[in-house]
């Protein structure tokens, strides 16, 4: 199942499925703060890739760059060979869907309606057909509902279809976010800390869910802090520290890399041991800091 991957960033196209998503040289700056530094990442068809790193490493920011929520200061993101425009709705339309670290459901819509919103890009009915309500409209609406119910079935939320999203327990809200994202029929699913706040059983169930998603031919890129989850799940893991990609490779490689351990335990790692230190600007920065200090917006 696991393909051994060289420690250095892999060139695209070498993998069995072929490259699905390719991020090249992504840089994101907020004023003086560089949250993502020159990150390359490739996700191949049918792969589950993990993205780990300490808090504030820039993982979520990187996701935002991939999905068009942020326009990267530099770099490109392409999906199936075409460059993605930095507009969230176009990215979703192209086939990349995501969930959010801090759950962002449509709180006052029902569970079913949330998933139906996810179907937006795969349906076309406009205002006019909604008002006229011809047979075509009813057919499309019925199809959407059927598909949405399937997804709720798949994520185990079918019996709560008519509940308000805000009334779901936390774990189910996370599942609903996944169902909503799947509704847009993505080729690649980005999950931002899908098990945060879950108990071990729920985490196990989510693991199964991610495998099931992959079995449907959907590639998954997942941010997680739960290492067991990541190493069980992922074909490949990339480590982000202070906005930079430190290591990328199979679970074993990453698990045993002392720089990763150092970064997680908060010990200063030797910057010179890195091959590509070019991106580091100020040699004097205290690298022991686990999180980048938040000094932006100093008005």
């Amino acid at each position: 199942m696991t393909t051994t991957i060289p420690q250095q960033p892999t060139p695209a196209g070498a993998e069995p499925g072929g490259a699905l998503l390719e991020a090249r040289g992504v840089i994101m700056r907020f004023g003086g703060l560089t949250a993502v530094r020159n990150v390359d990442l490739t996700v191949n068809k049918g792969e589950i890739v993990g993205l780990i790193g300490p808090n504030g490493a820039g993982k979520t920011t990187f996701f935002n760059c991939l999905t068009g929520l942020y326009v990267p200061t530099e770099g490109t993101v392409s999906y199936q060979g075409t460059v993605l425009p930095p507009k969230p709705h176009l990215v979703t339309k192209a086939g990349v869907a995501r969930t959010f670290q801090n759950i962002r459901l449509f709180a006052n819509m029902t569970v079913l309606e949330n998933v139906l919103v996810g179907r937006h890009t795969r349906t076309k009915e406009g205002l006019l057909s909604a008002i006229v309500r011809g047979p075509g409209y009813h057919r499309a609406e019925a199809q959407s509902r059927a598909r949405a119910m399937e997804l709720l079935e798949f994520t185990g939320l079918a019996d709560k279809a008519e509940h308000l999203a805000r009334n779901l327990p936390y774990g189910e809200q996370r599942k609903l976010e996944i169902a909503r994202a799947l509704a847009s029929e993505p080729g690649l699913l980005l999950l931002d800390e899908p098990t945060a706040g879950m108990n071990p059983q729920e985490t196990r169930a989510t693991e199964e869910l991610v495998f099931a998603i992959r079995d449907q031919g959907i590639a998954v890129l997942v941010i997680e802090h739960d290492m067991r989850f990541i190493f069980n799940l992922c074909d490949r893991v990339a480590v982000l520290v202070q906005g930079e990609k430190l290591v990328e490779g199979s679970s074993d490689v990453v698990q045993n890399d002392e720089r990763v351990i150092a970064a997680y335990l908060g010990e200063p790692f030797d910057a010179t041991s890195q091959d590509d230190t070019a991106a580091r600007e100020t040699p004097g920065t205290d690298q022991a800091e686990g999180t980048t200090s938040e000094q932006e917006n100093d008005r």
Partner: protein
Amino acid sequence: MHTLPQQLANGLFLGSMYGLIAIGYTMVYGIVQLINFAHGEIYMTGAFGALAIYTNLPSSLSIWAALPLMLIGGALVSVVIAVGAERLAYRPLRNAPRLAPLITAIGLSLALQQAVFNWYPDAKSGKRFPQLPGGPFHIGSVDVQSGDLFLLGAAVICMLALGIFVRSSRTGRAMQATAQDPDTAKLMGVDTNRIIIIAFAIGGFFAAVAGLASGLKYGQIQYNMGFQAGLKAFTAAVLGGIGNIYGAMLGGLVLGIAEACATAYIANVPGMEQFGGGAWAQVWAFVLLIVVLLVRPQGLLGERVADRA
């Protein structure tokens, strides 16, 4: 009369007034994201408060002696109303959807206007306001009234004081912190409720200064003067970048000067002969706002706020 320097000066005076009122909008918005729709009326009540003091002073008193008392009276009225509104009407709605406090503000604005209309003696039409003696002064080719000078002076002093307060006092810094992130500021021990009250109070005080100055400038005040002025001032705040106090002042100046120049010069543009003059001033102010928002959505001095996902 219609020289360019004269128009610039007119715009400068008008703009200082917009700026003074805009401070109140921008500070409150910056901290609680509330469009305090009633702020125009707070400006209006400030003017009426000042007038009420003046009418009750012995007529032997010179206007110069009366001025500080009028300022205190107007400021008292405005600040009490502004703070009272925050405490009794807005604060209970702090967690309600944003439309709720907005409707409250609209209601308050109507109520204040009508209260003055109904109960201030003879306020159904314009009330005469005392004038400052002296002037017009001729500075180069520019004519300046003493009311204008008072307005400009007051605006400069107020802005400088506010700048120093926000920059170097403890409360001022807490205010900045609250504007950036109320939750974190609260965790850091800032009494956000107190900060909000102070923002309302400062806004109210500046509005009263503007009210007094506009009375002196135009020689007349009206119960409904707050709406137009409020609309302009809010426009100025948005122009300058809402939430930014320097932006509010800059936005006011830009708006005032643009308005003065448009009034004077648009008619000279071929094909636009009929669109000049005071009747169209509002329209050009609005067009300016749209253009600025298109080119620079965050306003002149505003910062782009990225939504963190």
